[in-house]
């Protein structure tokens, strides 16, 4: 009975949304990075896309987020080609945070987070009570409530990145695509951002992120997608796929893999050329 009561009082999760690719080819201009890729993003999990520089991680993420048009094949959102859907409708299901972000000088955290509501606002209405509630919840989730009126350029790198993630949260989409959300952050700020990302999963969201650091991928992702030269060469849970052989194939370095004595996540040790 107690379990049932819990189920009933839990807030309803947004219906999960499936994102997949079918025979996808993508790249920039004549430079084709990804060739004929089939991939389905696991729902309600954190997926980390890893691989060496130039392997097509960001290209994949940007194509999934319909920033880049495919050169062949399709990106499917709930089974429908994402480029056949109205852009606004896509924006209600999928939020993307690019690697490099710029905001106009003097913009405050609150100003930025409020932008996340744009896909939900019809052109004739400005700001609803629901927008207000969701923006407040996003600020709270990112632990930014007490600095919502601070200017972005006066924040630390970690705080600023949390503000951008809060904007993506305010977009209130079942899917979040994050391109290197912790690059250029120090250790403390990295942990801050990764824990925020983990907390999104408990709200029924699906996250895909490009990550450079295998250790963080192993610790914070449920699913790892390893890419090499535009192809997915391995995917699965960190424990299943993180082997010395895979690491060598990806980065041409040798290492040993042991289990973290505290949480059991795979750890790379004795890394050498």
């Amino acid at each position, binding site marked *: 009975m107690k379990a049932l009561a819990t189920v009933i009082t839990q807030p309803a999760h947004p219906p999960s949304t499936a994102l997949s690719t079918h025979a996808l080819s993508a790249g920039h201009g004549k430079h084709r990075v990804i060739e004929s890729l089939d991939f389905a993003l696991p729902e309600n999990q954190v997926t980390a896309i890893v691989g060496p520089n130039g392997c097509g991680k960001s290209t994949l993420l940007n194509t999934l987020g319909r920033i880049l048009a495919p050169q062949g094949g399709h990106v499917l959102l709930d089974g429908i080609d994402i480029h056949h859907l109205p852009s606004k409708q896509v924006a209600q299901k999928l*939020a993307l945070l690019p690697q490099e*972000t710029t905001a106009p000088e*003097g913009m405050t955290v609150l100003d930025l987070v409020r*932008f996340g509501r*744009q896909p939900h606002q019809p*052109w004739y209405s400005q700001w609803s009570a629901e927008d207000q509630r969701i923006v407040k919840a996003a600020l709270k989730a990112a632990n930014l409530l007490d600095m919502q009126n601070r200017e972005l350029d006066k924040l630390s790198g970690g705080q600023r990145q949390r503000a951008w993630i809060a904007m993506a949260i305010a977009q209130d989409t079942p899917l979040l695509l994050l391109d290197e959300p912790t690059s250029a952050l120090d250790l403390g700020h990295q942990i801050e951002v990764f824990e925020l990302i983990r907390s999104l999963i408990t709200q029924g969201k699906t996250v895909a992120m490009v990550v450079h650091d295998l250790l963080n991928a192993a610790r914070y992702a449920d699913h790892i997608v390893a890419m090499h030269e535009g192809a997915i060469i391995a995917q699965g849970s960190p424990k299943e796929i993180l082997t010395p052989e895979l690491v060598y194939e990806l980065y041409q370095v040798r290492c040993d893999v042991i289990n973290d004595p505290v949480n059991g996540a795979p750890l790379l040790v004795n890394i050498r050329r």
Partner: protein
Amino acid sequence: MPILLLGCAALLLLTSLASLLMGAGDTTPWQALSVLLGAGTEDARFVLFELRLPRTLVGLVTGMALGCAGALMQTLARNPLAEPGLLGVSAGSAFAVTLALLLGASSASLSVYVAQAGALAGCLIVLSAARLKGVGNDPIRLVLAGATLSSLLLALTSLLLMFDQRTADEIRFWITGSVAGRDLASLRHLLPSLLVATALTLLIIRPLAALALGETMATNLGHKPGRIRLTAVLIVALLVGAATAMAGPIMFVGLVVPFIARALAGADIRRYLALCLFIGPIILIGADTLSRILVYPLNYPLAYSLPLLALPYY
């Protein structure tokens, strides 16, 4: 924000009043005031209603148009130094008007539509030039193409003026930029296009604000950056074309007004664009009033008093 708007509105009212009361000529501020209060001599009535009122109204509309066009341009180019003149809009407009005069149109019948058509043509040429190499979405290339077209058109305009003395005489006053001597009929011709510009601005103001976060972010939020940009360029052409038709190619207002508005109201165009509507006319009417009393009893061209006004600002 409401206080800021009220303050700007009050300042605009004061500036307009000053523009009505002060000026070159024999009409004293007291005589002008008594006309405003319903009395006054015949001469003073003429000066006020036939000379100063149209001049102030033209300054009002031109200032609003240039201020907003500047704000749109700077958001579009993501460059606070972008100036509507850069797009080739003013130059296209000036060239079209010169050409029309050369082909026989007299100054009085000079239609505002010629100037606007020229502005639009200049705008479209520069857009397609920037698009030629498949880089139509690159704001820096857009501005560069605009600057090139501007210089070319201004050179052609000078060439036309060299060949034809009559045109040169008629256009000389206009081309230095002035709000004087325009009749209210031309204001009426501008009204439809200004209304269209306003409606379009209201439609794209939200996506335009998102564009300030970058193209990727605007797409992510469900907007179409290419379409927003094109609409914004059209609005700029309408506004600057209208302003140039009225008062000649006036630079600087479009550059400095958004600067002041941003300093007062913050970086979001949804907040500072409304301020531009007030600050534009304040600066333009203020500069015009100044140019009337500065070298009394002569009329000093607006183009020279505007930078004078700006010196203390820098």
